[in-house]
């Protein structure tokens, strides 16, 4: 193998890549923190980061004030009982498109594979934010697993009709 320089180069390259990946992983883990909230992207990032850190009160504070907003207990329960499981997703946040106090932010949600020999999948979706009266950006809609489908939808209170 000593004479097979190509193979040696491949092995050295693999070694370097592994070191780089591990270095980056631990560096990023220590270096991540909340950022500024003056843009839709920044608000979204902090919301997801708060969920990652299980800081649900802070995450809840980023939700838009409107009719049928879930109360904090309802919000927190969705994550605690893993109806919304953010442990199995990473999110890449794209550049927001703004229009009259509303913003659409493209998101790529990365789901991991089920084992060492399978690749995960990624989906491109959108998040929506609105500016409140004070000009702060707040989240009005996000995809699963960052948001539950029935938040902000009116609860049906009509009793079920009996069968004829």
């Amino acid at each position, binding site marked *: 193998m000593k004479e097979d320089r190509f193979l040696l180069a491949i092995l050295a390259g*693999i070694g370097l890549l*592994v070191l780089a*990946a591990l270095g980056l992983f631990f560096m990023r883990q220590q270096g*991540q923190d909340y950022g500024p909230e003056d843009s839709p992207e920044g608000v979204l990032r902090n919301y997801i980061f708060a969920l990652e850190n299980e800081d649900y009160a802070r995450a809840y504070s980023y939700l838009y004030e409107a009719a049928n907003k879930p109360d904090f207990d309802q919000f927190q329960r969705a994550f605690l009982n893993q109806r919304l499981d953010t442990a*199995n997703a990473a999110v*890449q946040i794209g550049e927001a498109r703004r229009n009259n106090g509303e913003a659409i932010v493209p998101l790529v949600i*990365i789901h991991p*594979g089920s084992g*060492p020999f399978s690749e995960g999948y990624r989906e491109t979706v959108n998040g929506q934010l609105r500016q409140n009266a004070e000009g702060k950006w707040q989240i009005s809609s996000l995809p699963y697993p960052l948001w539950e489908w029935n938040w902000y939808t009116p609860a049906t209170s009509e009793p079920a009709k009996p069968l004829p």
Partner: protein
Amino acid sequence: MPTIRRLYLYAVSFVSLETVLWGAIGLLRSIFAGEEIGGSVSRLAGALSLILVGIPVFLLHWLLAQRGAARDAQDRSARLRAVFLYGTLLATLVAAAQNLLALIARSLTLALGADAWQAFLGGSQSLADNLVAVFLNAVIAAYIYTVLRGDWQASPQGDDFLETRRLYNYLWMLYSLALVVFGSQQLLNSLFSLAGAVGGMGRVLIANGISMLLVGTPIWVFTWTLIQRSLFEPPEALSTLRLVILYGLTLAGAITVLGASGTLAYQILRFLLGEDMPAATLLSRVGSPFSLALPFGVVWLYYRRALDAGIRTLTLTGPEATPAELQAAELRAASLRRVYHYVLSLLGLGATFMGLHLLLTFLIDSLVGGQAVFGSALRDNLAASLAALVVGLPLWLLAWRPLLREAALPGEMGDHARRSTLRKGYLFLVLFVAVIGLMFSAGAVLFQLLSALLGDPPPDLLAGTLRLVEVMLLFALLLGYHWQTLRADNRLAERALARAHAQFPVLVLAPDNGEFANHLVVALQREAAELPVAAHLYSQGAPDETLSAARAVILPGELLAKPSEAMRLWLQGFNGARLVVPTSAPGWHWIFGSGRTLTAGANRAARAVRHLAEGEEVPPPREASPWMELVYIFAALFAAQLLLGVVGLTMSLLTR
């Protein structure tokens, strides 16, 4: 008895015998099921109808088959009869073993405090159900055994009985080995299950494991000892079936260990990279892959040793073997061992490629994913990539490096390694995958860039394009490395072959018209340009001493049909290879190749000379029709599909 009639008699006998047998089992079961309420009439009627229809059909056909076997020794020794007898023996004894297994599994499940339905087999059956099935299957097996013993005492002609018995023994060995391996797996898994969780699952696993081991171990010990003892008989030791089964077991063990170790490493790496995982969760996650890896690892190591011993036996030479015979045996052993290394190398390469791809995707996601939030998914991706590399890279290096070393050897051994069909197949398969992968990934990159240029950029253009470029580069690396290996092989092979061809002078004995000599010289030059070729007109008498030093002589059929005395004596005394091109000779008919043109005959002779010059045997003429080749191709495709199914099933077990 014609084969088709024999097939009909034995097929009907088998089906009707099984009908009667299971009808009788149903009948006895309904008699013993005294406490059941309802359904007894239909059970009884069903069982009776099976017996009443089955018995006359069976007796009619079986007695006809027995009469034929008693009259004719060829009938008694026929493969179909052997398949029927050993097949029925297998069907009845496996059914008895399965019922015994159900009985033990259910009893143990109950004894350990779980419910009967939780037993993996026969959860809804009763003791009487199993005992009846064991007893009646054993009775039929005993009858078939006495028939078989009678046939063996009459010394069956040919190898049909011998080969069927061999297959029967190996099938038992595989069945019992599966029980032993999965029994051990269940027991090992139960240890992790008991340590990591609360609940009755561990008890069920223990019951399943012990019952499989109780039934499987004695059968495996008995059949494997029987097989090992039979190796004193040369047909058993040299059988292809043995080699195929040993290879299959070794590779199945290796593939399962690879998959299970990958999953094991993945779970441990997730834990090491900081996933919040309680000890109980970690134990339950590593339990399943560990419990698979350990017994399959033992299977791998044990049968690898048996395979090595088998290859040594297959290539054994006598004490008075010549150096050429010894070398031929060594080459044969090396080519048999090569299969194992190439399969493992391909698996290791695939896992390494996947690991590298996941690792680079992780780096791209982390570095250029916009304002990426570092979720757990990325940690899982990193763990998956490292796990695939931890398992795949050592496996690839361990399997590939001996192959590289072998191909770099000087001399005959290196030549054979470089020219082996397996090596070429491996290299071209990897090149094919790499070129196709490169083509598609390059197309995808171009599509991304063109879409952006034409005003419709994808949402994550930079990261998406980089991911595709990464795949493209990996395929390029795969292509570059294997292309370089192939070129190095070709350079060395061409040099060695040119040397071998130059040391193999060929003499063409030609009639007076120059056509024969011209065709041969042109064909030989085209096949191997370095071959020294001389032509001699046999009408001028026997070749002189210089020409007689040739290593091979090619002559037309007409000379062989009517040689002069001088030529006859010369041909008899010639030490090299004699190759005859079937040209027409009055009053002579060549069974093969008589209708071919002189050009076709010359080309075939030139190919034969090349094989001889390269130290190989001349391949026999192909007699198979193109339709048969098509059948083989479809059979291979079907086998590949089956193999993929098995691999998929194993992977689903691992990732469950």
